């Protein structure tokens, strides 16, 4: 997926003015936020389950090399082939080589954020393989040539009428207007692809060290199709997705759908282990698993390691006031919301995503809802510090802070300056007592208003404090 994170501010402005998107985001809040809180309330010992889930992820990361080798050993023993990829380009090369080896003409894909990281579809199309996304949302996006805007509900930004127009144009069938009819039309189109595809490509929500299995959850059933019907199955996932045992997997599955969509469990939880066995009449003859680093090892062993616990539920974005206002596209890469504000700079470089660690009010809604207890605001704050250390803050901000530091160490000068500033700002406030444009601070006020100092024509805090003390004594 093309990286456009440096345009966060411009994109945000467009998105705030997008009426359809704003309506969709409201609904998302209603459904996913309420769904999560209802499902969590049903678990009487939720805090203990959440602690256990965070523990499982942390314990695995602390022994990641051993668990990955255990996974590889068990997957290989059951006939799967495990590949390791340093980066997106290697993933693409491996998949393209497999496509050539097995003479693949068509591949069907179930939703995989890791393959979005790699822009795998483009790579496969470049070598002449037809790729069909089969998650309804991803299918719509593929037809519309748009990137996903949410990791769980990828097409949340589109309204039904747009889908009707799109299907009518691309399928060449009479235009449907009902949602069930649109879904049926997609089902019929995709059914043909499922049966005729040579390769199924999936992600993996988790991989299990104990058994060498890969696991995916879907509601539509496309995950089952992709891992059952084509003669080759390729599962692509990040190295951090490993969990030790099936029991540990059960704990994580208990929390993932609750936090993602407000469901107690997703419709289909599919655990696949190796290729077709003797006597089996379905299932792939060849099963390949690709483990991607893609920047993940950079997070290990440092102050960002906790981020690797992420189980991609999307709760942090559903609860984020910034995401709720601007949607996913503004973030400019695969992962939006608070988790994206950390992963994007870490995977693609802090200098390419300067705005993201700052695209947060640090209100900690995300940290509160995260099922694996990732301290998201702390991590964003650390990234901001790193930006400062690396000189990646805008020059004006650095100079401003330096000037403030100089003045703050000189109480007299500071008092005079703040007094003048408070008076000027009070005078600048419009009738609604808000300052819409701040000289030298245009960047800041372009996205928000600043309340003008009120009361007594703009006294400073020190003046007010002094006055109060005089009255009291």
């Amino acid at each position, binding site marked *: 997926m093309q990286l456009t994170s440096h345009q966060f501010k411009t994109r945000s402005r467009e998105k705030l003015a997008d009426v359809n998107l704003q309506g969709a985001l409201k609904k998302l809040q209603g459904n996913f936020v309420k769904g999560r809180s209802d499902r969590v309330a049903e678990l009487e010992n939720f805090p203990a389950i959440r602690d256990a889930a965070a523990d499982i992820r942390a314990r695995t990361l602390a022994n990641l090399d051993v668990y990955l080798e255990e996974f590889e050993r068990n997957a290989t023993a059951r006939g799967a082939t495990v590949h390791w990829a340093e980066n997106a380009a290697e993933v693409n090369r491996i998949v393209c080589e497999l496509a050539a080896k097995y003479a693949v003409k068509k591949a069907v894909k179930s939703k995989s954020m890791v393959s979005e990281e790699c822009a795998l579809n483009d790579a496969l199309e470049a070598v002449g393989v037809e790729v069909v996304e089969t998650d309804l949302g991803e299918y719509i996006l593929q037809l519309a040539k748009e990137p996903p805007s949410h990791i769980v509900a990828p097409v949340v930004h589109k309204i039904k009428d747009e889908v009707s127009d799109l299907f009518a144009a691309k399928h060449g069938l009479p235009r449907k207007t009902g949602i069930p009819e649109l879904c049926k039309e997609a089902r019929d189109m995709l059914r043909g692809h499922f049966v005729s595809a040579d390769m199924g490509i999936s992600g993996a929500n988790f991989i299990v060290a104990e058994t060498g299995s890969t696991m995916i959850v879907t509601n539509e059933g496309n995950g089952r199709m992709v891992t059952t019907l084509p003669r080759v199955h390729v599962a692509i996932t990040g190295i951090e997705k490993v969990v030790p045992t099936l029991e540990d997997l059960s704990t994580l599955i208990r929390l993932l759908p609750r936090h993602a969509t407000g469901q107690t469990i997703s419709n289909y939880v599919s655990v696949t*282990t190796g290729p077709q066995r003797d006597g089996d009449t379905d299932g792939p003859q060849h099963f390949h698993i690709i483990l991607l680093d893609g920047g993940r090892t950079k997070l290990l062993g440092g102050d960002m390691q906790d981020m690797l616990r992420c189980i991609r539920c999307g709760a942090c974005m559903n609860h984020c006031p910034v995401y709720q206002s601007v949607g996913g596209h503004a973030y400019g890469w695969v992962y939006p919301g608070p988790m994206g504000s950390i992963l994007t700079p870490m995977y693609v470089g802090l200098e390419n995503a300067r705005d993201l660690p700052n695209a947060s009010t640090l209100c900690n809604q995300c940290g509160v809802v995260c099922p694996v207890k990732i301290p998201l605001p702390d991590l964003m704050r650390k990234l901001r510090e790193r930006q400062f250390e690396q000189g990646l803050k805008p020059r004006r901000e650095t100079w401003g802070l330096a000037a403030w530091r100089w003045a703050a160490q000189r109480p007299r000068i500071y008092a005079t300056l703040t007094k003048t500033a408070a008076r000027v700002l009070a005078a600048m406030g419009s009738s609604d007592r808000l300052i819409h444009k701040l000289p030298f601070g245009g960047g800041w006020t372009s996205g928000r208003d600043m309340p003008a100092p009120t009361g007594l024509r703009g006294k400073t805090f020190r003046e007010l404090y002094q006055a109060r003390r005089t009255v009291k004594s």
Partner: protein
Amino acid sequence: MRCRPGSICRRSGSSRVSAREAILGRIRTSLRRADGDGAAERVRAHIDAHAVSPRPHITGDLIAQFRDNAVRLLSTIAEVPHVRDVPATAAAYLRAYNLPMRAVCWKALRLLDWVNNGILMEERPARATDMVGVTEVFCAIAETGTLMTLSGEHTPPVSSLLPETHIAVLRTSQIVPSMEEAWQRLRYTVGEMPRAVNFISGPSRTADIEQTLTLGAHGPYRVHIILVSEGDSRV
């Protein structure tokens, strides 16, 4: 450098092996791992213990809880005393929904009396055009109202996936509290992981367009569970 068996690196050089070593090497360095630091033993011990983490307390009437939760996920349920009652119940269901009286089933169900109940039954894996698939299950989970099926020669997963209607025959003795017990049961009764373990929780669904719930996305539109209360009897 060693070439991993089955890997395509034999064809295209040895870079795959080096990616593996490089990634594992970086992990070990970042985690400050030292040889003989006991990590391998700790991992082995954790896996072998199969420890169960805190989870909801599922006690009391498992059957009632399974029933409630399955209905919540939009499965439908009929209860019969004996497995021999399954064909009549299935037929009544198909008629009630105006569905075709023609189906495919798993091997273990082939000897039931389908024909005298008006169902044209074939014992084979489902194809994309079959309308009704009838299967058994390995067990079922009370906590969520979920069915668990295992792939195998006589239990093809396609039969619960491709048809528009899935009818599942479940015995009350197969209901376990949670997924954890289901794995235990799999370990003790089957031993080896089958190629596919599928947990099925109601009809296939999507809410991708305007977050409006629609049933029958790619899999079945309907999941009908026939719950057989006789103990462990088999066909």
